[in-house]
């Protein structure tokens, strides 16, 4: 296709890279709503982008598909900007299941400590309800449960235009890392059920959490099922993939570091310690990180020269 898929006229996708999720902006009757707000280090630009798109209207709602740092990192700054713009607060509406952890700002329960990621504290006003319908941009969006990548994640589906906001449950080629398995949760099975649900709904267009909106959903589902089968057949491969994702994500944020700093960071990161202890304990953590860095360098995702480790775009 030479032009982006036709979606809905009152929906706008802000697509950036991998550290920030897509932000989906809706033109409502009484202002604008934003679904997912990106990573905290990008929050200033996120505010600038939303300010450009809002054309003087108030930002009334901030909605989150899940609470990962790359989806809620702009919440606090956007809520403050909304107040500056219109004198009224934006309502922050989060996926259900972790409202108490958000209210208490429990960084362990929210996974920011476990992944070694940052997020700016925000206060939520409401939670999404599974099966409920939200009006966004004048259209009805059903809230669907989407556990797998995150046990509390939701997707949003508009049944008339058959547009799916899939969060990290389905990308054009794959899906978000299946973190739950390394904690012993049946997350592969949950992810399979989510793919089944997407197949049943048969969306015409998918707006993923990362990457451009796409059609060709049946083929994307086929790729996702294939990848899920190969990960589920070899949980060490899944663990290895999560280790790569954690390191690449951190390097996207810090850009460059030393091997000693990287080792210190991930020695203090619960998920990396868990991956080491559960799947690769026959070697020291240092050897595991060495191997993961080599694999990342071979795929062109990072560079390593002696002590220096850097992101590679």
């Amino acid at each position, binding site marked *: *296709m*030479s*032009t*982006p898929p036709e979606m809905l006229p009152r929906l*706008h*996708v*802000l*697509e*950036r*890279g*991998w*550290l*920030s999720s897509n932000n989906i902006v809706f033109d409502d009757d009484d202002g604008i709503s934003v679904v997912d707000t*990106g*990573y905290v*280090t*990008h929050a*200033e*630009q*996120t505010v*600038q*982008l939303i300010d*450009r*798109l809002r054309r003087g209207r108030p930002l009334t709602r901030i909605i989150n598909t899940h609470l990962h740092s790359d989806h809620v990192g702009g919440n606090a700054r956007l809520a403050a900007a909304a107040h500056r713009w219109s004198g009224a607060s934006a309502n922050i509406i989060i996926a259900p299941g972790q409202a108490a952890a958000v209210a208490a700002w429990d960084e362990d329960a929210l996974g920011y400590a476990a992944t070694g990621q940052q997020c700016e504290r925000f206060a939520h006003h409401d939670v999404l309800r599974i099966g409920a319908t939200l009006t966004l941009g004048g259209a009805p969006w059903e809230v669907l449960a989407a556990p797998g990548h995150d046990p509390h994640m939701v997707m949003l589906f508009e049944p008339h235009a058959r547009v799916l906001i899939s969060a990290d449950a389905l*990308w*054009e*080629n*794959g899906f978000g890392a299946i973190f739950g398995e390394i904690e012993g949760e049946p997350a592969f099975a949950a992810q399979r059920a989510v793919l089944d649900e997407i197949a049943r709904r048969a969306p015409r267009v998918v707006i993923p959490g*990362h*990457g*451009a*909106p*796409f059609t*060709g959903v049946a083929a994307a589902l086929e*790729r996702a099922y294939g*990848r899920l089968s190969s990960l589920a057949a070899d949980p060490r491969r899944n663990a290895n993939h999560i280790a*790569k*994702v954690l390191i*690449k994500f951190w390097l*996207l*944020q810090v*850009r460059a570091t030393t091997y000693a700093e990287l080792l210190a960071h991930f020695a203090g990161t619960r998920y990396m310690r868990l991956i080491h202890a559960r799947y690769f304990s026959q070697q020291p953590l240092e050897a595991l990180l060495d191997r993961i860095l080599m694999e*990342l360098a071979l*795929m*062109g*995702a990072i560079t390593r020269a002696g002590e220096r480790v850097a992101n*590679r*775009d």
Partner: protein
Amino acid sequence: MASNLFRAAPAAAPSSVASPCVSVCKIDAASGWCEGCKRTIDEIAHWARYSDAQKRAVLAALPARHSGTATG
């Protein structure tokens, strides 16, 4: 190459022009360009709605901004 890791799109997908975003995502106040990809706020904001031809036109303007030979 991050897309190889995060599997955004098939390597051979002919359908879309890849975003130049490198996850820096900070606007330089003096130039008005993102410090990472050198796009303007408008170019980033409207990227998803551009046709492939429009995306390629934006990409074509970026090397001069990176090398400092463009002024605005």
